[in-house]
């Protein structure tokens, strides 16, 4: 018999701790938390492995490559920290669950296809928005930036619309 996983924190407690972590990050670094910045740098590096010349000449990836190893950046260490912190938390609370998480009426194959397409949309969108839910929404929102709130309005509006059209994926 498996031990039951510990309950999640209440949204209020989790939000307060997350807000304090974000505030501490502002105090230490002068900027907020992020995630997609690492994906960009990793993608630049991955493209360089496949097509070095074209990547160096690419208008978007080129500047990252010219500055040296694109992965040598604060955001890389932050994402490594996220992996460690989330793993320690999940492990300690018995919440590690190796599986394809999906709605009851969606096959694993379909779920993975939606994950791939959704990931591609998010990757493209994060470059357009110059950041993601963490960098522009959360961190931008905390500085009361107009950009952060425009982002959040778009994020929630499209989330509700697509979720309504695709509700069978999760239910």
């Amino acid at each position, binding site marked *: 018999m*498996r031990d039951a996983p510990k309950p*999640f924190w209440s949204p209020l407690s*989790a*939000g307060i*701790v997350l807000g*304090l972590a*974000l505030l501490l*990050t*502002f105090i*230490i*670094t*002068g900027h907020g938390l992020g*995630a*997609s910045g690492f*994906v960009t740098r990793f993608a*630049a590096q*991955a*493209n360089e492995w496949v097509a070095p010349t074209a990547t160096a000449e690419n208008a*978007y990836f080129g500047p990252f490559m010219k500055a040296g190893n694109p992965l040598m950046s604060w955001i*890389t*260490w*932050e994402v490594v*920290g*996220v992996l460690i*912190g*989330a*793993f*320690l*938390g*999940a492990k300690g609370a018995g*919440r590690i*669950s*190796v*599986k*394809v*998480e*999906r709605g009851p009426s969606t096959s694993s194959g379909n779920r993975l296809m939606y*994950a791939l*397409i*959704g*990931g591609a*949309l*998010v*990757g493209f*969108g*994060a*470059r*357009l*928005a110059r950041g993601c839910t963490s960098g*522009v*929404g959360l961190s931008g929102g905390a500085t009361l930036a*107009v950009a*952060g*709130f425009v982002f959040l309005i778009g994020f*929630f509006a*499209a*989330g509700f*619309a697509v979720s309504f059209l*695709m509700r069978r994926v*999760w239910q």
Partner: protein
Amino acid sequence: MSIPFYDGGVASGLLSGVLFGYALEAAGFGSARKLTAQFSLRDFSVFKVMFTAVLVSAIGLYILRSMGLMAGNAVFIPTMFFWAILAGGLLIGAGFALGGYCPGTSVVGVASGRIDAVVFAVGMVIGTSAFAWVYEPLMGFYMAGQGPAAQTLPQLFGLPEWVVLLVLVVLAAIGFRLGTMMERARGGPLTSEEVCAPDDEADDLTMTAATRQA
């Protein structure tokens, strides 16, 4: 006193990341089903956690500035590029509803053992690469609708910062209330037992929840 310290080192990144990852995981954000249940109005954790964090941090920054410990322009504030940021927000919302994660939460999903989060991350690298290869023709759109550099809501509305913070706190409180009411009407927020069960048990638990609701 000179806050912030502008420390971009390894230890600073790891510390921020560990706290960030630990808090996201504790909120339940390593689970695609819990995250996406926001948009079926069954689980308002995404809204509640996000707005609480934004306000705690915003009020903290306001206090530091009011006490003279931090200059007004000391932290990075993103500049508005209306069309690209709106379109990016829409794409991320759509990809989140379909794929189950955003960039940060997908890292938490990977750390919690979710195979779908690994595939989502591969998708993000593909999408980011696609953007880079169409960046030049998109440049006009990317730069369109540029606002004043680092503009904030108090500047946009011409209101004191504390008034804006107060309005946001009131809006968040109303959102919390409405959210909790809608959660209750739809079987309540997803628990760790529901979303962390092994694959074969997950269906049973969902069934139990559905029966309970009916």
